[in-house]
């Protein structure tokens, strides 16, 4: 057994203080296997040691929440005996090092988090951030990540129904790949991870264990430098075919009554799964590592415990029922091995070749992991800028340019590589405000979205945190759904820097405030820190995944203009806020200004009003106003419907470019018959909601005063940027 020197401790990512705590807990020096276990269990990725204090402040309860954060995924009650189980998780570091496998295994991991709880996965989403388009690695990373997500999701047969993708130089050295899975389960058939029953058998199923991904969790908890590419061996390799078999086998097993507890092997593999199960059940485990199915010879206990080989699960079965389970896994040709037994010792005892190779107390490792109150400073807030400090460009000319920019262009090139229709329930396909997936066999649907605007979070993390939640809520509202709950994926730089910690703390405060105001609890989440390369951090990116419920899919609307001669209305006030806008960045080269403030009571009032209009069938289309502003929303609706519009001039009190491209919050564009529009406007006025008639649908162009733009030209600007970028010379 190698000597545990300070260098060995350091290379395991443990600080001197943390190692002191290890010695205290163990009452002796650990051996290398034990040290490795401490190292992964206490990694930022597994222990949330920097963020825990602040995550606890988020609202996590509501009458419809069945299970909040702490399990594999969040669970909400969606009525009619069903539960919706969902979570979002990052795979940032591995995807930068090896984009195809990094992204693919990110999808695989989040799927397992959901089906391990008894839910059949019904939809995948992803939120992607890449570096500047002109950075030499960007094209290679986009290509690899997108084919990795598709390669995995398409094969497992779960539709990838939407997501978001944008570009910024701050992600040059640290891309973000956040994957979300949504599943459905019978409310009374949810499976948890707490082990129970001394003497019950601990069973390993799925793929064999190899040497891949060792120390993945530790790698994901450190900054990058020039040598990060050398960490490629820490990236796992995915096998979506095995995952598909594992889903089917688990679904079949879960229909029986033999499972006591089940937990997928994610980050830190067999270590974290076994410790979590034992710790939650207040028990111990004795495991014989010789029985772990292995695909390589001569693996040490250290390697077996730290491997992050994919497509594996750990289960505790009811006594005497292992034959039932074994028959199912045999049918699906997956490994099935009894690897241990539950004890009342509260200790993890591991044997290899007949000898005890590790003996650790479970609770101190799993629950007494370090928790830091890291020092933080209030972020420097960007100063506001006035609209007239941003140069004015003729609106339709600006529109054409904006539609052809990386963040506002069509992402069709991406989502056409994802099977977004398999399972036969995709009602709202990618490209809309929220994806809509029918609840199989019913007329109800789930609306799903992912949102965050990192440039707002950079300018003001508190408002940015609020806005991410509000925009997710708004996107669900735009398809007529009742927003129900949130999963968060907090991506930040190095928390040991007070200014980064300040971003984390204030963004979480903003998110929490919005979640409370909108009755939108956080039920699951993931934190990814140390997204820095050579000291340069990413933009603060607290991605929000959210789920809402549509009671009657017949009443759901899309964003496409539906008919000629309909009134186009904007609900919500337009003041022309150009600070931190895409217009300012893309057309004036100004990355400056405070982000648009989010008034949560106005957000709620406007959203509830719009949802009411949709559900009662009074509007024919709806689209929220977000990045790029009002004219972008109108253009997207026109292009989606292949139907133009004649627009009214901007009001006199707002500069024209600020009116059309300002990013004021809490706004929606809706269409309605001319008669209905009048009623809607007077109802809005009575409720104190700002609303205005801004045009009429018709024709094949957008007409604004004396100028016009054909939909063909707009669509070609919108559709061409990404394919042209991706077909450029391969730079890597």
């Amino acid at each position: 057994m190698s000597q545990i020197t300070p260098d060995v401790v350091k290379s395991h990512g443990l600080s001197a203080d943390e190692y002191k705590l290890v010695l205290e807990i163990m009452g002796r020096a650990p051996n290398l296997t034990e040290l490795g276990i401490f190292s992964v269990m206490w990694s930022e990725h597994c222990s949330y040691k920097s963020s825990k204090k602040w995550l606890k402040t988020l609202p996590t309860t509501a009458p419809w929440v069945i299970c909040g954060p702490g399990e594999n995924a969040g669970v909400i009650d969606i009525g009619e005996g069903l539960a919706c189980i969902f979570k979002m998780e990052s795979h940032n570091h591995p995807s930068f090092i090896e984009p195809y496998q990094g992204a693919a295994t990110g999808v695989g991991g989040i799927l397992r988090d959901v089906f391990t709880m008894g839910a059949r996965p019904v939809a995948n989403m992803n939120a992607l951030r890449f570096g500047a388009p002109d950075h030499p690695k960007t094209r290679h990373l986009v290509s690899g990540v997108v084919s990795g997500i598709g390669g995995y999701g398409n094969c497992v047969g779960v539709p990838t129904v939407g997501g978001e993708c944008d570009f910024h130089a701050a992600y040059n050295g640290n891309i973000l790949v956040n994957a979300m899975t949504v599943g459905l389960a019978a409310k009374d058939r949810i499976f948890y991870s707490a082990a129970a029953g001394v003497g019950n058998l601990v069973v390993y199923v799925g793929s064999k264990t190899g040497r891949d991904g060792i120390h993945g969790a530790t790698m994901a908890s450190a900054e990058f430098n020039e040598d990060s590419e050398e960490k490629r061996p820490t990236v796992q390799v995915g096998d979506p075919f095995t995952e598909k078999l594992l889903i089917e086998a688990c679904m079949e097993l879960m229909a029986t009554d033999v499972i006591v507890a089940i937990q997928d092997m994610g980050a830190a593999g067999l270590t974290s799964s076994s410790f979590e199960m034992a710790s939650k059940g207040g028990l111990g485990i004795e495991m014989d590592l010789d029985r772990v199915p292995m695909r390589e010879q001569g693996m040490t206990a250290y390697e077996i415990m730290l491997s992050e080989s994919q497509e594996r699960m750990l289960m505790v079965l009811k006594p005497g029922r292992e034959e039932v389970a074994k028959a199912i896994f045999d049918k699906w040709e997956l490994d099935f091995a009894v690897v241990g037994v539950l004890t009342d010792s509260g200790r993890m005892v591991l044997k290899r070749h007949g000898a005890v190779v590790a003996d650790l107390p479970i609770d101190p490792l799993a629950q007494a992991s370090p928790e830091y109150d890291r020092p933080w400073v209030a972020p420097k807030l960007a100063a506001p800028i006035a609209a007239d400090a941003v140069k004015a460009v003729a609106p339709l000319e600006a529109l054409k340019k904006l539609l052809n920019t990386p963040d506002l262009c069509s992402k069709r090139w991406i989502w056409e590589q994802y099977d977004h229709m398999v399972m036969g329930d995709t009602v709202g396909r990618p490209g809309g405000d929220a994806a809509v997936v029918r609840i199989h066999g019913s007329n109800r649907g789930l609306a799903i979205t992912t949102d965050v605007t990192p440039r707002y979070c950079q300018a003001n993390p508190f408002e940015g945190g609020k806005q991410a939640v509000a925009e997710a809520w708004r996107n669900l509202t735009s398809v007529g759904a009742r927003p129900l709950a949130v999963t968060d994926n907090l991506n930040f730089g190095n928390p040991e820097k007070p200014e980064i910690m300040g971003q984390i703390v204030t963004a979480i405060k903003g998110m929490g405030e919005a979640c409370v105001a909108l009755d939108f609890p956080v039920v699951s989440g993931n934190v990814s820190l140390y997204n820095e390369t050579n000291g340069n951090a990413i933009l603060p990116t607290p991605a929000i995944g959210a789920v809402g419920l549509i009671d009657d899919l017949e009443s759901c609307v899309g964003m496409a203009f539906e008919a000629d001669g309909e009134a186009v209305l904007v609900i919500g006030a337009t003041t022309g806020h150009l600070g931190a806008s895409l217009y300012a960045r893309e057309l004036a080269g100004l990355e400056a200004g405070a982000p648009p403030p989010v008034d949560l009571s106005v957000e709620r009032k406007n959203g509830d009003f719009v949802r009411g209009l949709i559900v009662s069938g009074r509007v024919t289309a709806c689209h929220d106003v977000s990045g790029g502003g009002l004219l972008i929303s109108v253009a997207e609706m026109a292009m989606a419907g292949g139907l133009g519009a004649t627009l009214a001039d901007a009001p006199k009190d707002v500069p024209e470019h600020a009116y059309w491209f300002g990013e004021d919050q809490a706004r929606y564009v809706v269409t309605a018959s001319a008669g209905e529009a009048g009623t809607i406007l007077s109802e809005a006025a009575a409720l104190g909601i700002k609303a205005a008639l801004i045009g009429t649908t018709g024709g094949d162009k957008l007409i604004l005063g004396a100028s016009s733009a054909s939909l063909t030209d707009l669509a070609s600007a919108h559709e061409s940027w990404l394919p042209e970028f991706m077909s450029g010379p391969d730079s890597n």
Partner: protein
Amino acid sequence: MKGAVFPLKPEAPPLKAAVIVFPGSNCDRDVAVSLKAVTGKSALMAWHRDSSLPKLDLIVVPGGFSYGDYLRSGAMAAHSPILREVKARADQGVRVLGICNGFQILTEAGLLPGVLMRNRGLKFCCKDVHLTVSRNDTVFTAKYRKSQVIRVPIAHADGNFFASPDMLNRIEDEGQVAFRYCDEEGNLTDAANPNGSLNNIAGVYNMAGNVLGLMPHPERLADPLLGGTDGMPMFESLMEALS
């Protein structure tokens, strides 16, 4: 199969169908839903290890990634125990419908001519495409009009239909082409060809006309809520002809 005649069965109970399930199939449920919508009853879900099937009118080989498609799409499934039975039944005249991976499997098994190569664009492609219905005198397409333009989704990486010049001539001469990729107006353009298939071929029959394979997924647009119903007439055709 030029001018093939399809003797309709005498009065019989509603269409009896089986859907083959391989490890890695993932459109098995979807097609079972479409079949149930027309027949009113559940199809038999047949496991890949089964070596015999009960008396049937229709066998569907569904989409997905059978055995992970790791060797070559459909190659391993073509050698599975159930495929021997499917071949035997096809030889007896039982109707066989292969969709997407099912089409790949049937070509690998030699039940259909041609091969499906990697898409011209080298990428997986999921989108609605337009097809022309080449003939409507078959049990699979009687409910369509001849030359009708329909909209049906594709979702595949290996759908680029290829055959040797001789084989292609035979396929064309014998009227074995079932569907071709076209634009909205029905023109067989190169731009409307999503994967580089020869002669824009999206689906073919065998010589006898009882086996059809196609890359597009009719089961995915067979419900108005999903945005279209152009796939439904295929299932209705089978129901009417085989009941």
